């Protein structure tokens, strides 16, 4: 199998599978122990400066925002981040100066809401480096390989493009067909953050709705911090074991954080808080605005509960619940601006 082309992107989060196995032998345990801790403790313990982090969920859906805010509060620096259709998490971490480099599948944009002023400024000014490009499937399969303990996954995307040229993948001749395939290197992020609707104190997690990349991503993580709407009794897990998407062995920290995805969506529970997202998009047009946002919502509050109060408290949260259940219309400043 001859190599045709080697992407010049930095190989973020790649570990020789033997080295990864040795790390697991030393650092992970299959013991069924209580892993509950606060978000502050989890960030302190598992996210040192310089970590390569990846966030579960997608865009503004099911994101462990309490961990993201805590990373900012603790002024973590020189992080590398997976831009795996990371959107809000990515943008605020970039804005807060936590990030030194990233690999991008989709970043710098908030889908329909428009581009991300803060993180674009960070990259265009040279403060942050995009060290590799990939695609959504590219990332998905980096984590599949990471989960499987193999060095790469073959695929048929990326080929022929600059995305390949700037990726960490290689193309090679497949020995079974004689045709070119791309070899997507596996990834085992230093830390993965994930928000789930429910889990037990050991970390056995259920997820309602689409899994996005989280089945493979959770299993590829070196350290896995789970925040959850609710900690349920072990009995809830054991009575329907086929609902366990992430078994406890992969999990390092379990933090109970109701509304922990806010201002992002939690399927079946609450809708995007488009007012907060809109406020961020508006303020983050300048560095001063970025500071104003963080002073108000991160440094100016002592924890996530106080943040939720400031974001509108129980009236706002009830509204978001009702929008998610299709009982109310969403309120979006970016939508109001469009009224003719």
């Amino acid at each position, binding site marked *: 199998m001859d190599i045709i082309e080697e992407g010049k992107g930095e190989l973020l989060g790649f570990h020789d599978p033997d080295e990864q196995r040795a790390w697991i032998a030393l650092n992970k345990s299959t013991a069924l122990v209580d892993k509950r801790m606060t978000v502050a403790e989890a960030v302190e313990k598992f996210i040192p400066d310089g970590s390569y982090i990846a966030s579960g969920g*997608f*865009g503004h*859906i*099911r994101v462990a925002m309490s961990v993201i805010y805590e990373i900012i509060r603790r002024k973590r620096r020189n992080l590398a981040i997976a831009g795996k*259709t990371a959107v809000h998490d990515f943008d605020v971490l970039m804005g807060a100066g936590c990030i030194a480099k990233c690999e*991008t*599948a*989709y*970043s*710098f*944009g908030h*889908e*329909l*809401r428009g*581009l991300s002023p803060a993180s*674009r400024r960070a*990259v*265009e000014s*040279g403060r942050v*480096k*995009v060290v590799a*490009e*990939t*695609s*959504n*499937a*590219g990332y*998905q*399969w980096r984590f599949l390989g990471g989960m499987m303990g193999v060095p790469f996954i073959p*695929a*048929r*995307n*990326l*080929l*022929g*493009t*600059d*995305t390949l040229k*700037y990726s960490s993948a290689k*193309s090679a001749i497949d020995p079974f067909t004689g*045709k*070119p*395939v791309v070899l997507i290197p596996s990834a085992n992020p230093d830390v993965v953050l994930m928000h789930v609707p429910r889990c037990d104190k050991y970390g056995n997690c259920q997820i309602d*709705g*689409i*899994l*996005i*990349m*989280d089945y493979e991503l959770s299993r590829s993580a070196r350290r896995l911090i789970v925040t959850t709407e609710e900690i349920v009794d072990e009995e809830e897990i054991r009575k329907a074991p086929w609902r366990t998407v992430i078994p406890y062995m992969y999990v390092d920290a379990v933090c109970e954080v109701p509304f922990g995805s806010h201002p992002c*969506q939690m*399927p*079946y529970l609450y809708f*995007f808080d488009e007012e907060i997202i809109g406020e961020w998009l508006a303020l983050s047009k300048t560095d001063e605005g970025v500071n104003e946002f963080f002073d108000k919502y991160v440094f100016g509050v002592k924890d996530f509960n106080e943040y939720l109060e400031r974001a509108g408290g129980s009236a706002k949260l009830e509204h978001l619940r009702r929008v998610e259940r*299709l009982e109310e*219309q*969403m309120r979006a400043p970016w*939508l109001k601006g*469009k*009224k*003719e």
Partner: protein
Amino acid sequence: MAETNGYTENELLISVASKLLEDNTSALVGTGLPMLAGMLAQKTHAPGLLLIFEAGGIGAQMPTLPISVGDSRTFHRAVAASSMHDVMSFAQAGYVDFGFLGAAQLDKHGNINTTVIGDHDHPKARLPGSGGANDVGSFTRRTIIIIRQDKRRLVEKCDFVTTPGYLDGEGARERAGLPKNTGPYRVITQLGVFDFGGKNKTMRLIALHPGVTVADVEAATSFEIEVAPKLDTTVPPTAKEIEILHREIDPAGIVLKK
């Protein structure tokens, strides 16, 4: 938002795109115009069209317009709420007929840039990157590109090829290892519709929207454009289509008011 003849540009683009989607086929859609085109097709000529979202939503019955590709609306009453691995495998294995792509830059072979304007490592403007676009452009049988065309967007050479069109022409996709019988199918702009029947797999104008001339198209394109022998005029969106779009699909104007 320019409204002429009783319809807006967005309505026109959505209507034209929706008509390309055949009944009982499948389409991998993103947010924005493609989602509206898919939903409009389902409510008109293609009730059997399967809409799939890369984050895992398969065959949803969407109660309101999703604002994200992973939004819970994309798997509301779906036949499956699955994963990206599942959906991307489905596409790579060859099950998906149509895919949609947007572009910041588009060249004559249908190659697309959504990554960066200027040099990659010293960008003039940083754009979101591939997202699922490279995957859609690699895996689906026929991709439909929707772009508001002008000379800065329809360029001789993209600053960065994020997503493969026909690369440098006939046979290049296959030589690169991309799946056979895939590639750009149509380009829809505010001026007309193009296929890739031009020399060596290049864009060829096959229809003009009402009131547009070939000269208008040429003035908004940086490369030489071929014109099909039989040049059609687009059928504009009907009042019925416009009503469905505003009443049933996007009453809040999330996309339509853009």
